[in-house]
């Protein structure tokens, strides 16, 4: 996974609350077999609205999305995070996120930044014509107007994102502990391994 440190650039000033995962990626796009290619369908229902931020050339290719409360609620589908990553999003700023979606975003290398509503409102205003900068190391969001908002993040997730480590890579580094458990299983409950395949 790509390491994240500074994310700087344009931000889609969406601002709406309760953007559910059905809005992020509608159910009829779920029967895929790869993670790539979903970006073109992301926010399909919003894109049907004239003047939407996603089709506004001013924000084309923005790495940041600024949304309202409860972003990513609804179905636990991971396709939502895949679609976001595929359209080039690296971070979402919102007053709150659904737990499951925030987890899915993290697993796919997308930073979720929680800020109070008034700060999100300020960023929405600034993002209309100015870039936003997220500094993960220092846990700040800044604007060219000297705004400087600090955000909290789970230290484990921060470390993973900074080093570009995915959860699987981290667990694989614990190979000794896993092998120790397997040795115990082999000695004490041998039928667990012995029986899995039909004789």
């Amino acid at each position: 996974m790509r390491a994240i440190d500074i994310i700087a650039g344009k931000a889609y000033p969406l601002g709406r609350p309760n953007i559910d995962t059905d809005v992020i990626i509608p159910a009829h796009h779920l029967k895929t077999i790869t993670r790539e290619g979903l970006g073109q369908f992301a926010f399909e229902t919003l894109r049907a609205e004239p003047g939407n931020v996603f089709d506004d050339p001013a924000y084309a290719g923005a790495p940041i999305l600024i949304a309202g409360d409860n972003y990513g609620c609804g179905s636990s589908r991971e396709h939502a995070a895949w679609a976001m990553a595929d359209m080039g999003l690296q971070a979402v700023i919102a007053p709150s996120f659904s737990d499951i979606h925030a987890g899915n975003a993290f697993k796919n290398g997308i930073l979720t930044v929680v800020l109070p509503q008034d700060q999100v409102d300020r960023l929405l205003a600034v993002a209309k014509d100015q870039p936003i900068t997220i500094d993960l190391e220092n846990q700040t969001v800044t604007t060219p107007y000297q705004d400087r908002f600090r955000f909290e993040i789970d230290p484990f997730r921060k470390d993973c994102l900074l080093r570009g480590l995915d959860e699987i890579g981290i667990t694989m580094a614990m190979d000794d502990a896993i092998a120790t458990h397997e040795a115990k299983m082999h000695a004490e409950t041998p039928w667990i391994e012995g029986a899995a395949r039909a004789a």
Partner: protein
Amino acid sequence: MASTPAPRTLYQKIFDAHVVEQRDDGTALLYIDRHLVHEVTSPQAFDGLAAAGRKVRRPDLTLAVPDHNIPTTARADAQGNRLAVADPQSAAQLDALRRNAPLFGIELIDDLAAEQGIVHVVGPEQGFTLPGTTVVCGDSHTASHGALGALGFGIGTSEVEHVLATQTLLLKRSKSLEVRVDGELGPGVTPKDVALAIVAKLTAAGGAGYVAEYTGSVFRDMSIEGRLTVCNMSIEAGARAGLVAPDDKTFAYLQGKPRSPKGADWDRAVAYWRTLASDPRAVYDKVVTIDAATIAPLVTWGTSPDDVVAITGIVPDPAALDDPARRAAAEKSLAYMGLTAGQRMQDVTVDRIFIGSCTNSRIEDLRAAAAVARGRHVAAGVKQALVVPGSGLVKRQAEAEGLDRIFLDAGFEWREPGCSMCLAMNPDKVPAGERCASTSNRNFVGRQGPGSRTHLLSPAMAAAAAVTGRLTDVREFA
């Protein structure tokens, strides 16, 4: 003073035995003994492994079976050649599993194998699911496996990839919930009714954050297949997993299954399995009790699995609900379902019947439905009545008992195993506005097809509805 170990529940014992590493933040890295893989939630996981150049850590503990997308009509021509799957996306997912399983060294029970079926039917039936093991699958009804005293729970695609690569999962401990049902079940009351009664009592979110353990005389007396039905619907009450302590019934069920332990291993396993039951003084975080005598044959009226009413009851009146949010939800549900408050459930006519799904597609379910269908006929107003065995082995057993003839003579269709009409991902769907009496587990809006209307009930009640063309009290057929 010597300290005695604190009494533990079945859940705590299984969890403790699988902790690879406990972290300070309360999460644990848990070892996974059994991983079931199907075609819908696995392609991206395999894709991720391939992209990172990773292998499957324990292909020997992993078993792949297609079930969700697979059509339930004939799968091979007269020469035994596989027929093409019409829907290109389903075909792509099925092909991906067929490609990925051998690539990563995983055993695949494919569409034409006699053992193929719904993952949650295949696991127990093969003896792949064993007491005291951790079982995962990219499917929320993995809770089913708790019927054998295994800790089974559903996971997402990223977690599927994580388990494939590491055979472990990062997890927080759940709270423990005891669901105790004591007493005698009345006539016509089946494990499905017990499951629906539990979901109604807990509500659809009541079990969130908990792992349920089903205790009491009703579960002690219940067959393993019945326990599978109850544990299957744990997730409908919000509980990620549901368990029944393994007992002599469990061991009798597993002995001689294709993948269950043999010889000295078997004796050793049984001795271990006997230590798993919750300790007498173990404390649960929450306890719910139900008197078995109060459970009637049940049916759902709305679009949430806790929208449950006795078959002799009426459609509830939303106006009677104090909470405005719940009232609005109930009104929306009734509008979607095309029902009016006060209507008798037994007056509700149905268009389709579905007997199948991982909840109710095992041999006992088919026997119960056949007992009602025998010598009768599907009502004229019913457009389709499907019987879909949960696996090829269930199908073969049913055919050996002549159940297929009973169903066919009565006007039912007898299909190949798979998820079928449970979820509208394959050709078996309920058209918009039509009403289905279904033995599956979810009555969500659009679950059986866009605009479909679902009434959940037991296999015997589904057969009774087929015969009368309306929701029917199965006790009339006694």
